[in-house]
């Protein structure tokens, strides 16, 4: 016990030493709570990259001017390992050790819940891409969502698909057995029914699964006109479509919250053709700006794949914060949170947007991002419809 | 005199086979209070199997083991021990990493009330001459003392029938003398007995009251050491080999 005490004292002293030295006064630290290890590490790494990209751009543009002073952002990415316990550790480290007062972005429903409960007590402003509906609403006045969630995407996407394929009247659904999967499934089955499509089955599978043959066999045996893989990550979805292809199933393919074509093509090959996605971002075609292309090229070098909507959220949040801080002329989180719903800012997707969501969530906490319906055609992701809500 | 009291241990028609091999075949014998009963036989005669079945470490294939009038449930070592039948093992039955005192205390945990355990440990240690070794780690003691610790654990459990599996192996003559003296003293308490499996013929012949000879899992002969020494079958099967050496 004596030893414990000594070590504790030593560690306590040590941890205060090793904490990065206080930065220059004009820096605003943005904490990021993202997975940097494990299966979702690539999302976290991309998020870190996008946060840094936006911070660099803002610095080069002359920073944020509040009260005559110029401030700049610095990104502090911490690994939340996609679970609540690590999320708590990250929250403690960011809020209580680093003294962070803004969360530039956070990923993963469970760790974000852990972060949110601590952040709200301390009046810290939180941006998140997490989809849990319970994270939003009037109970959480300091939380803002930096990405489209199923609530925004599904009604648009599914109506579009139903209209394009009027003969397809049945769907089989599959989702990963996690928070996003469960949220997506609950909403999607409602929306399909509303569009007069019959839901034949709605299954879940464990994340980390690598053998999709049995799953594909089950889906194909229902003989559905459409297969909706909901929140299934692109790589898993590709593998499933490939197995379905082998089994001879041919119908309308949807990955509702599919975020990118790279993973889909990597595992699905030609079987990925025709897949509709609701959160995909394309970097080919005429509408893509040079800026988008350049950032995406650098991202590919850094993280190995094309940017997706999750990661782009970590770019947009910085411009939103900049706008709100300048409008409020303050760097106090409460004041910034107050002015956020009333500002517009330049999004990575192009154009000036603001916040909305009072109808659904009771307050304007959702970025008014365009909902882009994309489809894989001849191995390329193409934008087939864009709707700005 | 012996036939007047009922036997402490009565083994009737005991059988144990391993697959097709009959290790012990319809064995009968009894052990009475106050005696040291030797169980001998050449290697592979079935001594260990008999020992294991009696002490509940192996269930019997047939027959029964009656102890103090009650039939012991087969294959329940702890139950046999609590009934008063405690055994040791051939290859050191003590815990290497524990002190001698803690080792002996192990023997007291299931039968002695907690307040009396410490006293019992000291008593047994004194009996076996281990009093000044109580604090030492058993694994670091010389071999002879380790054997004594094994016996001490068993004695601490206050058995009515103490079953010793080759307790003298590897001991020098002085140590053998100590152990034999302890065994002799233990038997003298009257209501207790010792069942001894041992290779050291000289010791067996000195200390045992009666001896049973096993050969290929079956009964060969029984009697006092003098009777056994003069038994032609035994000399032929067993002692003959020993004498030839």
């Amino acid at each position: 016990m004596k030893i414990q005490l000594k070590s504790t004292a030593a560690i306590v002293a040590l941890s205060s030493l090793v904490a990065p030295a206080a930065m220059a006064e004009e820096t605003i630290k943005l904490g990021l709570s993202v997975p940097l290890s494990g299966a979702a590490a690539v999302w976290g790494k991309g998020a870190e990259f996008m946060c840094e990209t936006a911070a660099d751009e803002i610095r080069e543009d002359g920073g944020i001017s509040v009260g005559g002073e110029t401030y700049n952002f610095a990104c502090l990415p911490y690994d939340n390992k996609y679970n609540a316990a690590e999320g708590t550790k990250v929250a403690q480290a960011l809020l209580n050790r680093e003294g962070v007062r803004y969360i530039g972005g956070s990923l993963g429903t469970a760790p974000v819940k852990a972060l949110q409960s601590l952040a709200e007590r301390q009046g810290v402003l939180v941006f998140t891409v997490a989809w849990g509906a319970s994270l939003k609403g009037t109970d959480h006045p300091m939380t803002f969502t930096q990405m489209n969630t199923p609530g925004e995407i599904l009604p648009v996407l599914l109506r579009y698909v139903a209209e394009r394929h009027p003969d397809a009247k049945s769907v089989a659904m599959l989702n990963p057995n996690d928070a996003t999967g469960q949220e997506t499934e609950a909403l999607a089955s409602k929306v399909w029914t509303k569009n007069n499509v019959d839901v034949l089955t709605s299954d879940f599978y464990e994340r980390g699964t690598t053998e999709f043959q049995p799953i594909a066999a089950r889906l194909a045996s229902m003989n559905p006109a459409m297969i909706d893989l909901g929140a299934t990550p692109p790589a898993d979805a590709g593998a499933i479509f490939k197995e379905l292809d082998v089994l001879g199933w041919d119908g309308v393919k949807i990955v509702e919250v599919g975020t990118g074509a790279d993973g889909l093509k990597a595992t699905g090959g030609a079987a990925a053709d025709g897949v509709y996605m609701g959160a995909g971002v394309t970097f080919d075609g005429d509408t893509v700006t040079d800026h988008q292309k350049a950032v995406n090229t650098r991202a590919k070098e850094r993280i190995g794949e094309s940017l997706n909507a999750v990661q782009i959220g970590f770019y947009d949040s910085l411009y939103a914060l900049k706008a709100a801080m300048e409008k409020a002329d303050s760097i106090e989180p409460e004041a910034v949170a107050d002015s956020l719903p009333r500002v517009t800012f330049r999004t990575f997707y192009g154009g000036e947007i603001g916040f909305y969501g009072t109808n659904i969530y009771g307050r304007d906490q959702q970025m008014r991002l365009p909902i882009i319906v994309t489809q894989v055609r001849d191995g390329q992701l193409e934008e087939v419809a864009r709707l700005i809500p | 005199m012996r036939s007047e009291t009922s036997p402490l241990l009565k083994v009737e028609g005991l059988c144990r086979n391993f697959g097709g091999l009959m290790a012990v075949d319809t064995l009968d014998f009894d052990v009475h209070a106050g005696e040291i009963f030797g169980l001998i036989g050449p290697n592979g005669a079935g001594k260990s199997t008999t020992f294991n079945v009696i002490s509940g470490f192996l269930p019997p294939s047939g027959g029964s083991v009656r102890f103090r009038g009650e039939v012991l449930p087969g294959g329940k070592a702890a139950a046999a021990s609590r009934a008063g039948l405690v055994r040791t093992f051939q290859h050191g039955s003590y815990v290497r990493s524990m002190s001698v005192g803690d080792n002996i205390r192990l023997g007291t945990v299931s039968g002695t009330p907690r307040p009396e355990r410490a006293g019992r440990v000291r008593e047994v240690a004194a009996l076996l001459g281990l009093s000044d070794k109580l604090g030492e780690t058993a694994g670091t003691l010389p071999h002879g003392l380790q054997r004594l610790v094994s016996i001490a654990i068993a004695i601490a459990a206050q058995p009515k029938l103490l079953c010793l599996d080759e307790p003298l192996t590897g001991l020098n003559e002085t140590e053998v003398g100590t152990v034999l003296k302890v065994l002799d003293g233990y038997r003298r308490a009257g209501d207790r007995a010792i069942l001894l499996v041992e290779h050291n013929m000289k010791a067996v012949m000195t200390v045992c009251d009666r001896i049973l000879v096993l050969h290929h899992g079956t009964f060969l002969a029984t009697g006092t050491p003098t009777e056994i020494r003069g038994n032609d079958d035994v000399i032929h099967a067993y002692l003959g080999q020993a004498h030839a050496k």
Partner: protein
Amino acid sequence: MDNKRKTVLHWGLGGGAAILLSLVLTDPYLRSVLTLMAISALLAASLRFVMLMGELNFALAAFAGLGAYAAGYMNTALSVPFVLALPLAGLFTAVASALFGAITLRAKGPYFLLIGFTFTEAVRVVYSKIPALGGTSGMIGIYPPLSLDDWMAGIVVATSVILLLGLFAAERSDFGRILLAIRENENVARSVGVNTYLCKVIAMSCACFVAGVAGGLHAFVNTVISPGDFSYLLAAFALAYVKVGGENYFLGPIVGAVVLVALSHYAIGLGGSEHFLYGGAIIVAVLLMPSGILGAFGKVGPRSVETKVRAARHAV
């Protein structure tokens, strides 16, 4: 007697100082680190308790999870107050682990270890399938009473000290001697009338009571729990605490927990490199300090011989 008094003195000083530290620390971050150290030490001590009888309880993560979910469910759905929910969570876990042990302790060594590993992963899937437990996104709002908020670090540390004291007493008792005998020579224990199977189940159950309470504390401290919190890594880390601290010493898991938790808090700022650093620490500790930090610093005591004996046995 002198030894006993010294032990009592050590516990009084050490435990008292730890509790005092938890009360005087005002920095919320350091307090959170201290509570995590205390909970981790509990888990590691629980793991080591089962190791006394020679088994690796890799189901530890599952039982910590059961404790956390039991405490969380009682608190959020049944409004059981904090002071009651905590011991009840421990009891629930103890009963569940006794059932689990009754089945699995018929197997030994690697079987017991691996079955614990798979059980952990299975239980996680089960949580995610129960909406009442919050599914995969986890259970939120597990708050201790507001009046206790400032005292939580003290409560966690005090509870840990009490439970550790309980484990210490059990280890030094005849029951502890039986467990050690079971590990090294189960036949000896059986030969003196000990029902070793029952003892194993009881030991497992006691250890898991501690793990269950630790899980409950985890739930109340974090206020949010998710199935991902209780993956096999939790048991792996607990094992690391035990091994790095020194498995032959009662203080081993505590020292290991303090050192490694501090290290992991430092490493958390390194992003994805945390695993690298953590794994490296374990490898170095295991290869260069086989009897842990305490062993390396040459702590002398009756147990130091054990290491030598064990090493000798493995060399054969």
